C-alpha cells in the first residue's frame, strides 16, 4: 500500500482486463485459488444425484432383463409338473398282464391282483416296452371287497378280434368307473402313508406280484422289504445319506415291478425291480442311492 500507483483511483482499464479474463488481479487470484471441494462432498453429491435418477431406471431395466427368463422358467416348471402329474395319475384303462406264460398262470395272476392295483396310477410309458402282444384286459375291481370278487374268468384265448371287442367293452365299463377313482386314489394314498411301518406279514392276505415277499439286502446294507399286501419298505443303515426309510406301494408290470413311493417329494422318482437270478435289481429314474442289487437275507 505504498506508492502513488497503488493509491490511484479505480479505473476502467483495470476492470476491462479483469472482465476479459486477464490482468494481474485475475492471475493472482487464480494462483491463490487452489482449494478443491473435498472428496467426501463429491461422493455425497454424486450419490444424491445418482439416487435421484437411477433407481427407477434400474428397476425398469431389471424387470425387462428378468421378464423373459422368468416366463420361460415358469412355463417349463408348469409343463414338467403337469406332465409328471398326468403320468402319475392317469388311471390305466385296464390292468394289462402279460400272458406269455400258460393261460392258467395268467388267470392266477389276475386273481391275485390286489384291490389297489386297479386304482393305482398308470405305469410310466417306458414300462410298457416289455409287454407281450398277448394281453389280458382286466376291469377294475377296486371298489369291491375282496370277498365279492367274481371268480376268475377263463384263461384268455390268443388275441383275436373277438377278444379285442370284449376288451373294448370292458374298457367302456371302466370309463364309467373312472369318475370315482380320484377319490379312491386319495384315500389310498392317505391310507398308505398311515401304514408306512410295515405291517406284519401274517396280516396280509395275498401277494401282489411275482416277487416273493421277504427281506432283501444290498451290498451297502440297504434293506428292502416286500410285503404281500403290495407294499415295500427301503431302509438305510444308520448314517447313510439317503432318507432312512422309503415306503410305498408295489405294482406289477410284466417281468418287473414298480415301487411307487408314498412321499410326494419322491413321487417324481421311479423305482423298478427286476429279477437277476436270486437277487432283485432296483433301478431308479433319478439316480437314487437306493438303486442297486438286493439279495435275499
Amino acid at each position: 500500500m505504498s506508492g502513488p500507483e497503488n493509491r490511484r483511483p479505480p479505473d476502467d482499464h483495470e476492470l476491462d482486463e479483469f472482465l476479459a479474463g486477464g490482468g494481474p488481479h485475475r492471475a493472482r487470484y487464480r494462483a491463490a485459488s487452489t482449494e478443491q471441494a473435498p472428496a467426501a462432498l463429491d461422493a455425497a453429491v454424486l450419490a444424491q444425484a445418482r439416487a435421484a435418477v437411477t433407481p427407477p431406471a434400474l428397476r425398469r431395466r431389471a424387470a425387462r432383463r428378468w421378464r423373459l427368463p422368468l416366463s420361460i422358467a415358469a412355463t417349463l416348471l408348469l409343463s414338467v409338473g403337469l406332465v409328471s402329474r398326468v403320468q402319475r395319475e392317469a388311471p390305466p384303462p385296464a390292468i394289462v398282464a402279460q400272458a406269455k406264460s400258460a393261460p392258467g398262470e395268467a388267470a392266477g395272476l389276475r386273481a391275485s391282483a390286489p384291490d389297489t392295483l386297479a386304482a393305482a396310477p398308470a405305469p410310466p410309458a417306458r414300462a410298457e416296452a416289455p409287454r407281450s402282444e398277448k394281453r389280458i384286459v382286466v376291469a377294475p375291481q377296486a371298489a369291491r371287497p375282496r370277498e365279492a370278487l367274481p371268480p376268475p374268468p377263463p384263461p384268455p384265448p390268443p388275441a383275436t378280434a373277438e377278444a379285442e371287442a370284449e376288451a373294448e367293452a370292458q374298457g367302456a365299463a371302466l370309463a364309467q368307473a373312472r369318475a370315482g377313482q380320484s377319490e379312491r386314489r386319495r384315500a389310498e394314498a392317505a391310507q398308505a402313508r398311515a401304514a408306512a411301518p410295515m405291517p406284519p406279514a401274517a396280516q396280509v392276505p395275498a401277494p401282489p406280484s411275482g416277487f416273493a415277499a421277504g427281506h432283501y439286502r444290498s451290498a451297502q446294507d440297504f434293506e428292502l422289504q416286500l410285503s404281500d399286501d403290495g407294499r415295500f419298505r427301503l431302509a438305510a443303515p444308520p448314517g447313510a445319506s439317503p432318507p432312512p426309510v422309503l415306503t410305498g406301494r408295489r405294482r406289477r408290470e410284466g417281468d418287473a415291478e414298480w415301487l411307487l413311493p408314498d412321499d410326494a417329494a419322491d413321487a417324481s422318482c421311479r423305482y423298478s425291480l427286476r429279477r437277476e437270478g436270486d437277487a432283485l435289481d432296483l433301478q431308479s429314474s433319478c439316480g437314487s442311492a437306493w438303486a442297486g442289487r438286493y439279495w435275499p437275507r
Partner: protein
Amino acid sequence: MTESAAADFTATAGLADDAAMPPPPADDAAADALADEGLMLRYAGGDMAAFETLYRRHKDALWRYFLRHGCDEATAGELFQDVWARLIGARATYRPQARFATWLYTLAQHRLIDHWRAQRPHDDLDAHEPALAAPEQATPAARAGQAEQAGRLRRAIAALPAEQRSAFLLQAEGGLTLEEIARQQGVGRETVKSRLRYALAKLRQELADVWP
C-alpha cells in the same frame, strides 16, 4: 430461497440455441463438449454421466465461492451440498432460459444470504466482513512464500464489502457477466461495474507490497 424459487429462475441471458436441445453425447468426450445447459437437460433425462461432467466443471469454483465469503469448511460444505441438492431437486422443471452458471450461483448466493440471516438475523449483510476475514490456514508454514501471498489475497477478498466481494467472486469464480451479476444483485449494470472497480482497487492496495 425455496425449491420453487430455484426452479422458477428464468433469467434470459445469452443462451446459444443449440444449448437448449443438444444432441445426445456418444461418450464422455462428447458430454464434455456440451454446454452446461445441455448437460443439465441430459441429467434431467436420467443421464448421470452428464451430471458428473457438469459437477466436475463447477464444483471447485462453487466450493471456493463459499470459502471466499468467509465460511469455514463445515459451513461451506453444508451450503455446497444444499445448493447441489436444490439443483438436483429442480432438475425436472429445469428450463435453460439462463446460463447454467447464473442459475447455480443464484442458488448459491441465496443460500448464503439465508445462512447469514439465520446466523445474525438483525445484522446488515455488510457487517459480515470482520468476522469473515479470519484466515483458516494461518499456520506458520502457510505464512511463507506463495502460500502467504495467497492467504493475504483471500483475507483481502474477505475484507471487501459484501456486495463488492460478491460481484468479484461471481465474476472470478462463476464467470458471470456484468448483466448477469446485475440481475442477480438486483442493481444496474453500472452499479456492478462500480462495485468491481472498487473491489479491484482495494485488492491492489492491500497487496501492493507483494504484488506491485
